[in-house]
C-alpha cells in the first residue's frame, strides 16, 4: 500500500532491489477447512460487504456457484463439486472457497511489470496496489491458481487482499469473521498448521485416510491453506492444482529471457559502437564519385542505344 515504508514489504513487484524485509516477525495464514465448510457463502457475502463491492445479480446456470467465476468484484467464490467416491460408493459434495492463495513465492508478483503494483508484506499477504497497477494482465499469467481478474471499468487487477486492512489492525479477514462453522480460521501460519494437524487427525479417524493440509511447496507454500479430506486428489475440488508451480513459461519469460534479452541488445549496441570506432569508414571516395559519373554516362548511352 502506498505510504508504507518499504521495510514493511518482503517483495515489491518490478523493482531491481529486494526490500530490507526487517519486520519479518511472523507469517499469517488463513486456513480453510473444507471438511467443515457447509457452503453457505457467508464468506462471499462478507467479502462483498467489507470490501464494498457490487457484483451483478446474475442468473442460475444449473449449479449453485454464483457468480459463476471470480470477477473483479468477486474475490472469493464457493465452488461446488458433486463427486461419487468410488471407494465408498457415497456421494460427496465438495465445496471449496476459491480465492487468492497468497503464495510465499507469488507468480503474479513475479510476472508484474509495474513497480509496486504487487507487494508482499512481511506477514506474507500478497496485495495489489491499484495506483501502481497498469492493467496489463501479466499477473493473470503469473498466477498458478487463475485468481486475478482485470476490471473492464478501470483496467486494474483485483483479487482477495486477505483483508490486509483488517489484518493490519489485528482483525481476522472478513470471511473468517463471518464463517459460522469455524471452517475459516486465521492466525499465524505456524498456529494454523498446528490447528490443521488436529483436524487431519480427526478426519483420519472418520475414515478419510488421505486427509491432509494443502500448502503446496511448488509456490513456496501459501498463506491461504486448505484442509482437504482427499489431499491426494486436490483436483477433485473444482480443479485445485495438485502441484502448483509458477508456469515454467512464465519463469523463462520473467527469468532468463528478461536478462538475456537485455544482454543481447546491450551487446548489439556495444558491438556497433566498437565497430564504428575501429572499422574502416565506409565512405564514398572522390574517385568513386568520378567513376560513377563515368558509369552513368556510359550506361545512359547504352540506354539510348537500346531504345
Amino acid at each position: 500500500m502506498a505510504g508504507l515504508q518499504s521495510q514493511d514489504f518482503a517483495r515489491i513487484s518490478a523493482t531491481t532491489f529486494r526490500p530490507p524485509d526487517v519486520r519479518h516477525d511472523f507469517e499469517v495464514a488463513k486456513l480453510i477447512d473444507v471438511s467443515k465448510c457447509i457452503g453457505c457463502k457467508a464468506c462471499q457475502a462478507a467479502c462483498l460487504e467489507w470490501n464494498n463491492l457490487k457484483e451483478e445479480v446474475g442468473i442460475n446456470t444449473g449449479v449453485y456457484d454464483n457468480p459463476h467465476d471470480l470477477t473483479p468484484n468477486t474475490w472469493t467464490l464457493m465452488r461446488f463439486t458433486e463427486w461419487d467416491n468410488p471407494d465408498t460408493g457415497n456421494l460427496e459434495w465438495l465445496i471449496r472457497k476459491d480465492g487468492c492463495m497468497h503464495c510465499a513465492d507469488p507468480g503474479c508478483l513475479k510476472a508484474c511489470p509495474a513497480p509496486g503494483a504487487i507487494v508482499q508484506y512481511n506477514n506474507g499477504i500478497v496485495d495489489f496496489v491499484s495506483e501502481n497497477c497498469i492493467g496489463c494482465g501479466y499477473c493473470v499469467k503469473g498466477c498458478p491458481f487463475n485468481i486475478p481478474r482485470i476490471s473492464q471499468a478501470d483496467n486494474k487487477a483485483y483479487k482477495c487482499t486477505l483483508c490486509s486492512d483488517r489484518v493490519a489492525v489485528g482483525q481476522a479477514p472478513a470471511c473468517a469473521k463471518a464463517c459460522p462453522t469455524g471452517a475459516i480460521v486465521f492466525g499465524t501460519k505456524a498456529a494454523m498448521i498446528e490447528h490443521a494437524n488436529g483436524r487431519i487427525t480427526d478426519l483420519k479417524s472418520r475414515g478419510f485416510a488421505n486427509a491432509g493440509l494443502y500448502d503446496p511447496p511448488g509456490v513456496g507454500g501459501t498463506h491461504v491453506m486448505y484442509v482437504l479430506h482427499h489431499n491426494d486428489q486436490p483436483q477433485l475440488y473444482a480443479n485445485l492444482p495438485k502441484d502448483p508451480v509458477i508456469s515454467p513459461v512464465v519463469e523463462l519469460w520473467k527469468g532468463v529471457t528478461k536478462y538475456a534479452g537485455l544482454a543481447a541488445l546491450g551487446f548489439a549496441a556495444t558491438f556497433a559502437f566498437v565497430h564504428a570506432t575501429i572499422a574502416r569508414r565506409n565512405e564514398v571516395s572522390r574517385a568513386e564519385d568520378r567513376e560513377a559519373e563515368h558509369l552513368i554516362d556510359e550506361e545512359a548511352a547504352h540506354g539510348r542505344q537500346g531504345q
Partner: protein
Amino acid sequence: MVARDNDERTVRRSEERTTVDRTEGRVRVNHWVTAISLILLAFSGLALFHPSMFWLSSLFGGGSMTRMLHPWIGVVLMVSFAILFLQVLKHNFWNKRDTHWMRHVGDAMSGNEENLPEVGRYNAAQKLIFWTMTLVILVLFGSGIVIWYEYFGTSFTIDQQRVGHIVHALAAVAIMLVVIVHIYAAFYVRGTISSMTEGRVTGGWAFRHHRRWLREEAQKGVIDERQKPPPGRPRDLHPAE
C-alpha cells in the same frame, strides 16, 4: 521531380552533384511511420520488459498509458509495415547473386566492398533485414493479439497467453537486434540516410554500394537539372556530353 508522364529516369545531375532517386515519397512515409512505431514500441515494450527500463513509461504518460498505447502502436506498425511490404516486395526477392554476396559479407562489414560482386537495388543483408522484419513483425503482431488483455483476455487460454508472452518477448528482442543492425548499417554506411530523408543518394554512393542498380537506373536516362528551362516551357532534358 517528375518532368513528364511515365518518366522512369531517376538519375539527376545538378550543379553540385549527381543523385539517384532511390525511395519514393510514399515509401519513405511508410518507412518512417514504421520506424517511429518501432522505436515507440521498443521504448514502451522495454518499459514493460524489465524494471530497469520502466522509467521509459514516463514518455508515454505512465504505466497504464504505456500498457494502453503499446498495442495500438503495434497496430499502426502492422498497417504501415504491411503497406511498406507491398511497396518494396518486388525489390526483395532473393537470387543467386545475394547468396554469393552473403559469402563475402565480412568484406562489407569491414568496408572492403570492392571485393564484392556488383549489387543491385538491395544487397543480401538488406533483403535479409526485410524478410526478418516481415517474419518477426508477423510473430509480434500475432503474439501481441494473444496477450492484448484488454480486448482478447478471454479469447485465449492462460497457457496460450503465457506462450504468447514469451514468444512476444523473444521476437521483440529479435526485432530490436535487427533494428540496431539496420540503423547502425544506415549510419555506418555513410550517405545512406539520405535515401530515406531526401529519397535520393549520390551517384558515388550508388556506384560504391549498388552498382548494378546504378547501371540499371542510368540506362533509363539522366535528368539534367543544371540548365533549368524557363518556367512554362517544358522541354526534354538530355544527358550532357
